[in-house]
């Protein structure tokens, strides 16, 4: 594994896009991608939670986990849940409209597997604090890109005529499949590295 910071960023963001390559965070990916604006803001909220989680995971990994490795999952999930609670309160205070638009998907960031996966991978790869941060930002940006692309396509798909039988989740799945196919093209970016 090349520990170059740029490589970590590009890899998390495009080549191994969390959503389209690892199938992480699919619930918000399909749930919130109806409207472009909401999708973008949920993306930002997710980036924020990811960055905080990454910092906390580095801290836990350095001080707590060497003494109690079996607490890894539990401690990570508690950190994530509290961060999400915090973000929820902030958004509710700053922008009640956005709070309503995100609805159930805001607390559900807790069960966004992308975030737990981020923390686990970061510990597994032994990233230091800086590398972890870059990794988190890259993953968050990648998630946001996927979400926004999907929302854009879905807004278009809504006004076009499709057979009734394919409407809904089936159509979204196939769109996601094509997007994922497109993202596989990025695998060529760093073939030399």
């Amino acid at each position, binding site marked *: 594994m090349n520990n170059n910071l740029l490589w970590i960023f590009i890899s998390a963001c495009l080549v191994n896009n969390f959503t389209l390559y690892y199938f992480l965070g699919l619930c918000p990916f399909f749930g919130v991608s109806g409207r472009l604006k909401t999708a973008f803001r949920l993306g930002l909220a997710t980036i924020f939670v990811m960055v905080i989680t990454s910092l906390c995971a580095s801290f836990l990994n350095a001080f707590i986990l060497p003494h109690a490795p079996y607490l890894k999952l539990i401690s990570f999930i508690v950190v994530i849940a509290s961060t999400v609670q915090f973000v929820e309160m902030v958004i509710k205070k700053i922008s009640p409209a956005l709070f309503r638009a995100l609805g159930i998907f805001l607390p559900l960031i807790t069960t966004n597997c992308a975030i737990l996966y981020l923390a686990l991978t970061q510990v597994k790869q032994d990233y230091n604090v800086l590398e972890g941060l870059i990794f988190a930002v890259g993953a968050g940006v990648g998630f946001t890109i996927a979400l926004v692309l999907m929302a854009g396509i879905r807004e278009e798909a809504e006004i076009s005529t499709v057979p009734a039988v394919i409407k809904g*989740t089936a159509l979204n799945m196939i769109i996601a499949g094509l997007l994922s196919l497109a993202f596989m093209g990025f695998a060529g970016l760093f073939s030399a590295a």
Partner: protein
Amino acid sequence: MNQAKHPSQLYAEFIKGIWKENPVFVAVLGMCPMLAVTNSAINGLAMGAATTFVLVCSSLLVSSLRKFIPKQVRITTYIIIIASFVTIVDYVLKAAFPGTHKDLGAFIQLIVVNCLILGRQEAFASRNTPIKALMDALGMSIGFTFALFCLGATREILGNGSIFDISLFGDNFEPWVIMILPPGGFLMLGMILLFFNWLQQRKQHKLQARAREVMS
């Protein structure tokens, strides 16, 4: 939704998760692990077994403790209960089946955030007796495992020309490599959902036709 009131309806709680309310094909829950690990039939089954254990144990525990869990912190409590069982599965798999554990990678640990499990705790186990919760959890897990197996088997057959590592078509078969790569997961699940929609639509048309016949 079936509201079972007496023991004779336990069977209904059990059976609904397998087909009528299948968590994957009908409710579209728990997609993240299911798309990621289903590039072969055996991985699908292993993931299904792990999820079954976690779902059944946590449903039992949550429904037994449902009177003691304060409402405000219930989600956190559920998550911690689930995380404990996942830790057990993770360590057991690592010791007993290191190969499978490596194949599934982080996705065993990600069972914690499988929305299917948390959803069942919130929607069912926290409101029902342990025995009913057990039936519900068993039904849902079998439905989930069945879906994982279907997806894994079709992807392995098309993408690798084999099932359970047994070659099916001989040497002349050109495997659809795309099916075992990530996009194949999305496409295949899309196709399966399409098929389910089609079944449902056909059923509706039949019902309407019959209603018209009765009317005339």
